[in-house]
């Protein structure tokens, strides 16, 4: 199998951390991965985007033109990448901040989840990225939730390991939004 996904939002939403987490979880499962980040020079508020490709075989191009899945965390990302998703693909959209009406497509599955509201309900808006990853992993089955938990230990510095349980709760909350 080959999975490719765009994760896009603005700096501070944890876009790159989300992509990193997904990559490490896939490596833990013995898969081939490429993680390619692209971001503005600003630390917060600029555009942040990454492409993750996960494959059992050769990853091939780390640059993807038309992704199977796009995780859209802010309006600008929808405007920029909504049209690029492959026909038959999926848009997982943070409906707390994004008006999905702008996406004039009936050939992709749209999954709208109020990610900021869910994250704030758990006590911290900064966990919006974990809610998003939980939803993506539950939908795609690309890695197991157990590997994500394991991956958190790799991507978070030691001093932040105390936040792992809260992040796991946010991942689970995101996954709950996917109907199985």
């Amino acid at each position, binding site marked *: 199998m080959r999975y490719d996904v765009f994760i896009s939002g603005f700096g501070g939403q944890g876009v790159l951390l989300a992509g990193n987490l997904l990559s490490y979880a896939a490596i833990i499962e013995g898969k081939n*991965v490429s*993680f390619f980040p692209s971001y503005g020079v600003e630390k917060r508020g600029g555009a942040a985007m990454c492409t993750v490709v996960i494959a059992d075989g050769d990853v*091939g*191009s780390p*640059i993807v033109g038309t992704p199977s899945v796009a995780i859209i965390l802010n309006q600008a990302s929808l405007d920029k990448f909504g049209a690029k998703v492959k026909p038959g693909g999926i848009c997982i959209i943070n409906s707390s901040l994004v008006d999905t009406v702008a996406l004039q497509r009936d050939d992709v599955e749209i999954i709208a989840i109020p990610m900021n509201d869910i994250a704030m309900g758990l006590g911290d808006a900064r966990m919006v990225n974990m809610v998003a990853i939980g939803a993506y992993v539950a939908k795609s089955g690309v890695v197991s939730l157990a590997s994500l938990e394991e991956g958190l230990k790799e991507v978070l510095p030691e001093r932040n390991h105390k936040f792992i349980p809260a992040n796991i709760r946010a991942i689970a909350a995101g996954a709950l939004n996917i109907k199985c």
Partner: protein
Amino acid sequence: MAAIEAGCRYYFGYPITPQSDIPEYLSRELPKLGGEFIQAESEIASINMLLGASATGVRAMTSSSSPGISLKQEGISYMAGSELPGVIVNISRSGPGLGGIDASQADYFQAVKGGGHGGYHIVVLAPASVQELYDLTMLAFDLADNYRMPAMVLGDSVVGQMKEALVANRRPDTKLPPKDWAVRGRGGGEQRVVKSLFLGDGELEAHNWRLHAKYQELKERETRWEEFMVADARLLVTAFGSTARIVKTAVMMAREAGLKVGLLRPVTLFPFPEKALQRATQQCKKVLDIELNTGQMVEDVRLCVARDAEVNFYGRPPGAGSLPTPEELLEQIRKHY
């Protein structure tokens, strides 16, 4: 990591994006190993520190990005003239001038044709993945020592910023000549001199012929390349570095569509894999060269095969958001098929 595994304990550099991950890592790790990390006052100082360290026979390196590499050219020329090894990593930016930080392959000419004065060459290796960045860095140290010349690892922000799974291979067990030329300071033994100034009658000419012979030997013995689906290809695509990764996926897409397309990726840009290209074009009469610039390696491709094959080019000048996608390259493959 690769530099440390290869036995490098000395790094001299000056910060610039997008190569800063290298000094960040080495500034933390080298002191733990009893090595030295020096952030110099400029790129010019750091390349001359590398020259000095290499002259003592130790493994040492520097890294920078395009404008910084331009500043280092004088030192690189002196190292080439003095026959000093040493590894230079260029995680290049887009240019000219200050340019931008986006992925670019616009430094091919500078790296391959001798960016400084005096008509020299250095070894130039072009990794296409994180694994290759690791493995080729170790190879760069070996080639530099073996041939007593500087070696460059030339990447861009795709290879430099990307994360992929890595197998931390051990340093290859290469048999290397003793560094019986290295300076030792005051002490026993006869005096050793490392220099690039040759004023004696005929001395400089002889020196240049010796350098030339070394470059010919490199061409004979050290060219490396990757071939993918070349055997029955009707169209041969040539590309290097991260662009070749995108091309490879486009080639796979073309094959699925029934088009006989292959990829030849030079891994060593100097020495350039001339013979491999000439062999491939014995049966394949059409070549499409793809680069992230307006056409540089294509000149070397043409020099090699112009008699045997028609060579076309597709490329884009570097800049924000201009990375080609596999779909875009497939379109070019169809156009030139």
